[in-house]
């Protein structure tokens, strides 16, 4: 038997990832790869909107009313300068898409982040503390689960509006993100609670408690890593759902403030022009929204299958 050479290091985490099942599954799934590419492109354009966009649609000085209502470049009367056409104020649709996607993605991701933190935290608490705390949190989960997320988001938003009628824009964003987050935290709480309860009864946890390790340390160091897989899958799918919820709220007029239009707002604005035949003002933001949601959903689906040990 050879002794392992002392200088050979264990493969790095990155190396192990690329050798592992998840990466293999990814490379073998053309759908997942395509979805990842699309998602990446969208996120990139959204994040770097000011640099990627040909125009800045929110700089009022640069708008030219004479260029209003132009169809996309490939149609009659279209111009190459405004690739996807313009709206009634002369704003370039393509640029508006990127800026709008930026807002949509920002709100979506922020609310999911909040959801995850709150949900995982509460789930850990419920699973670990047990007893009345657990029962109470689960009751709340049950009640919240029976309400559809859109309704919860609408209510919070409505209440926010009523409480702060002259709110600053930032506050409006805060309320919106909070509303969407509130409608989504329950799934994480439940999943994490289940796993925590399983881990809690394991001997190494009991041993740690006997030694006197603080409970929260146990929770974070041991339970959390085991739970991150399903949480990651849930979070990915939730980002798509959050983006759609935000778009819906903005479309209904109770989402982002009108000064920072998201894709939903753009669709709402464009809706008014549908009947006069200027379809591009509403359809292109719609396509962008669907692309983002679809690619993120596909990634989430693939991730769930890749991380599911039973399907391997």
């Amino acid at each position, binding site marked *: 038997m050879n002794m392992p050479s002392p200088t050979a290091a264990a493969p790095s985490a990155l190396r192990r990832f690329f050798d592992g099942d998840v990466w293999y599954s990814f490379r073998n799934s053309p759908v997942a790869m395509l979805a990842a590419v699309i998602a990446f492109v969208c996120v990139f354009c959204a994040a770097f909107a000011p640099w990627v966009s040909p125009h800045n649609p929110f700089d009022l000085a640069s708008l030219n009313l004479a260029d209003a209502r132009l169809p996309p470049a490939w149609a009659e009367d279209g111009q190459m300068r405004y690739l996807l056409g313009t709206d009634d104020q002369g704003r370039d649709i393509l640029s508006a898409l990127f800026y709008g996607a930026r807002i949509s993605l920002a709100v979506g991701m922020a609310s999911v982040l909040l959801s995850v933190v709150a949900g995982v935290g509460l789930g850990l608490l419920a699973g670990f503390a047990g007893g009345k705390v657990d029962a109470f949190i689960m009751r709340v989960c049950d*009640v919240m689960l*029976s*309400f*559809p997320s*859109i*309704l919860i988001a*609408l*209510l919070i*938003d*409505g*209440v926010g*509006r*009523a*409480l702060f*009628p002259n709110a600053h824009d930032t506050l409006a964003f805060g309320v919106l993100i909070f509303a969407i987050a509130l409608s989504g935290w329950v799934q994480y709480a439940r999943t994490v609670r289940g796993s925590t309860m399983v881990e809690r009864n394991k001997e190494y946890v009991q041993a740690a408690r006997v030694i006197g390790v603080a409970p929260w340390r146990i929770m974070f160091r041991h339970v959390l890593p085991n739970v991150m897989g399903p949480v990651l899958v849930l979070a990915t799918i939730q980002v*798509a759902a959050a983006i*759609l919820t935000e*778009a*819906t709220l903005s*479309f*209904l*007029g*109770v989402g982002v403030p009108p000064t920072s239009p998201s894709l*939903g707002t753009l*669709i709402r604005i464009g*809706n008014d022009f*549908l*009947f006069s*035949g200027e*379809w591009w003002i*509403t*359809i292109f933001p*719609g396509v962008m*929204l*669907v692309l983002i*949601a*679809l690619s993120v*959903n*596909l990634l989430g*689906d693939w991730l769930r299958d890749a991380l599911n040990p039973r399907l391997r």
Partner: protein
Amino acid sequence: MLAFVLRRLLQAVVVMLTVAFLAFMLFQYVGDPVTNLLGQDATQEQREQLRRDLGLDQPFPVQFARFVGNAVQGEFGLSLRQGRKVSTLIAERFPATLELALAAAVIALVVGVPLGVYAALRRGGFGSQVVMTLSLLGVSLPTFLIGILLILFFAVILKWLPSFGRGDTVALFGGSAWTTGLLTLDGWKHLVLPAITLSVFQLALILRLVRAEMLEVLRTDYVKFARARGLEDRAVYFGHALKNTLVPVITITGLQLGSLIAFAIITETVFQWPGMGFLFIQAVQFADVPVMAAYLCLIALIFVLVNLIVDLLYFAVDPRLRIERPAGGH
């Protein structure tokens, strides 16, 4: 069995009280309850009088009890936006929403369940993959966008179907108690697009659920044993597998009915369908608290009722829940 029903009823009451509490908080502390009840044009005298009548100086539990008492009778005051009684407004709009939700539920079930079964049985096949991709699309398209697209195609471009409103309605039972669009051709034409729009999300969800459940069931030992006994495919799939698949599907679908009513908010807005959802949106935009509170309570009631019925249904379908003690012997 009796214990189970009682326990569920108790839970239902608890939920309703919690919701009532939230609605009460809305009513009292968001905006002015006196204005909520009297509308914005009341005089100072009327306000003073009402303040005394309402006992706004009374302790909190008393006020809450009064609120609940009123709520149970359907009394939520006047709409801030329209100045009419909230209960009247909601009563007018309820049939429209209910018809829409039911139509969408029927579409979602009739299309979703068979497609889900197909996708499970023909797993990996081309048709199945197409179905699954379409279902993913269904979950990725926001409801309002589906509505807009349908309007674009069928109303603007093809001009086959109308794009807003409910069309001609007929009042049942004499008076204006319940108006229905189901008895006129025009009503049906108006119902088609909104019902499809509302059903898409549910359809995709049901499809994926049925498929997932069926795939799980197909892996069980009893299906394996059924096959090992040489039962025909039809008996194995539609006899054994399907029945076991549908049991959890029933529960989830029942719960979805409640969320359909909520999602109707969006659909009604896009199609200007005169239902409760549209009313609610206008209330949120206007910060019309009484309407919001009333809607909240009504939705909670519907949810709780639907949950209860689904639980009872589950009981009826799954024999394991019915009998408490297994017979002994080896």
